[in-house]
């Protein structure tokens, strides 16, 4: 670039050629501060290299013991636990969908037009949206005793606010024209819902519910850790006694089951879409 062309370019767009040093200095300082904060947090959590090294050594040994995976002669019991896990996920999802449906209707802006009420209701759902199923399961197990019942309720409680939010958004995004069309043909409110609303809403809502079923099957696998039955219980037991060949067997079986359910659910969702 000749001197003349450079001067010309500088006159047109100075920022493109000469990054202002104040900004570069600010960026560098911010980066350093962020790094310092991260290191400070690591120190606060006592993440020391020594523990890291011994841990990785142990982890390597565990991974070595995982091969070859073995059922330990309990494949029937493990398969039953897997079925129980699916049962928890399915029952939990259905209950969550049934409860979330009316909540979703109330939460839809098109149904409840009072903005203050709408805001309060949405925020109320938001508050509970972040609570993971395991946190619910922990307390439900001590309330209802060991077993899959607590797991079902935990999954449902964790899903209800999320599904309700999705349902109300789906309702809000419905195209009003088919509804107007059916209404203008003189249909009763029930018929308007059946032929104007349901054909739009039902496939979307079913697809969302299937998506939650997939997620719940993953979550249900770990609820057993706090005593809510299913495959997590079997897994926890074997990790405690360091039977890692059986752990590997259960994890592989469970991952295959998860992949199967995901594939099935995805093909169903594609058909609905």
């Amino acid at each position, binding site marked *: 670039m000749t001197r003349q062309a450079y001067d010309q370019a500088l006159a047109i767009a100075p920022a493109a050629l000469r990054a202002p040093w104040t900004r570069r200095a600010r960026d560098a300082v911010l980066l350093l501060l962020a790094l310092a904060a*991260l290191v400070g*947090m*690591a120190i*606060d*959590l*006592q*993440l020391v290299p020594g*523990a*890291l090294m011994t*841990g*990785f050594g*142990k*982890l390597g040994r*565990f991974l070595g013991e995982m091969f070859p995976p073995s059922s330990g002669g309990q494949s029937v019991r493990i398969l039953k636990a897997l*079925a*129980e896990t*699916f*049962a*928890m996920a*399915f*029952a939990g999802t*259905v209950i969550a969908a049934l409860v979330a449906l009316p909540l979703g209707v109330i939460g839809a802006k098109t149904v409840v037009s009072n903005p203050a009420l709408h805001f309060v209701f949405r925020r109320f759902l*938001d*508050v*509970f949206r*972040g*609570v*993971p199923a*395991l*946190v619910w399961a*922990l*307390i*439900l197990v*001590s*309330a*209802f*005793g060991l*077993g*899959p*019942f607590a*797991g*079902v*309720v935990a999954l449902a409680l964790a899903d209800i606010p999320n599904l309700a939010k999705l349902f109300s958004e789906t309702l809000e995004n419905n195209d009003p024209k088919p509804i107007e069309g059916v209404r203008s043909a003189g249909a009763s409110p029930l018929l308007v819902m059946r032929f104007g609303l349901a054909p739009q809403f039902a496939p979307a809502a079913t697809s969302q519910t299937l998506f939650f079923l997939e997620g719940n099957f*993953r*979550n249900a*696998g*770990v609820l057993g*850790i*706090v005593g809510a*039955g299913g495959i*997590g219980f079997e*897994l*926890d037991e074997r*990790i405690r006694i*360091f039977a890692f060949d059986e*752990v590997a067997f259960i*994890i592989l079986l469970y*991952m295959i089951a*998860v*992949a199967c359910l995901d594939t099935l659910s995805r093909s169903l969702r594609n058909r609905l879409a």
Partner: protein
Amino acid sequence: MSVTNPTVEAFERERRRMLIRQRTQAAVGLAIFTVLLLVSFQRSQFFGSDIGGDPLGRMAHFLQRMNPGLKPELLLEDRQTRGSLHAWFYALPIWLRAAWQTVEMAILATAMGSVLALGASFLTAQNLMPFAPVRFVVRRILEAIRTLPDLIMALILVAAFGVGPLAGVLTLTISTLGGLGKLFAEINEEIDPRQLEALQAAGAGPLKKIRYGVMPQVLPNYASYALIRLEGNLAGAAALGIVGAGGIGLELQRAITYTEFDTYLAILLIIIAMIFLIDLFSEAVRHRLIGLEKA
């Protein structure tokens, strides 16, 4: 008056056939659904008699036990008075400390996981990694990480690294790598190739191409995804504590071990507030980033 037009008749026949097919499909679907539901309720002992049945009654009893029994006239009394706020949140400093630990776990894991995901994303993006076997292997590893539930990973890591935040941070880092690696790679594949070509024409090496051709295009999107991930990791970190990975989850576990249901509710409220605050923060930052991207 009957219709005799053959076209109309053919149409009616066709329509009837379609209706029958639709209805059979619906009936079969409904039957499968009902059977699955009944079996599920049976297997999960939802109405099981061995645990006393009456699920609603037990729910009500349980909610009653969670009630801290606040008395409006005693709210501001000291710790010894039952019914005061202080007696309900009796260990607030300890819980806030544990909650902050959970936040630290989530932030550290998100930061480390994002950096790892950044590296992985360049190894799996079709337009940046010309060597196919590397793409294949890294992709399969990321997929395996995403299939394995976090808590199962945490159980194994707690067994290896001992009870404490270290196992939790490692678990969340690995799962963040799995989740963000895929998303980052997708962003990488959608970049404008012309800027890369310009740099190539100017003779830039692979690193310079990434620094000046890719980064400016993808960083705002990366940051936005990483912040969403931070929200998820916070809830995850709270849950991981339950299996011994440190933070506020450990306090929850403790409250349950002593069957202090009202304490559990208090800690749960702290967790909800913590997640709510981080959500607000992350949403504000993300909106600013999106604004910057548009400008």
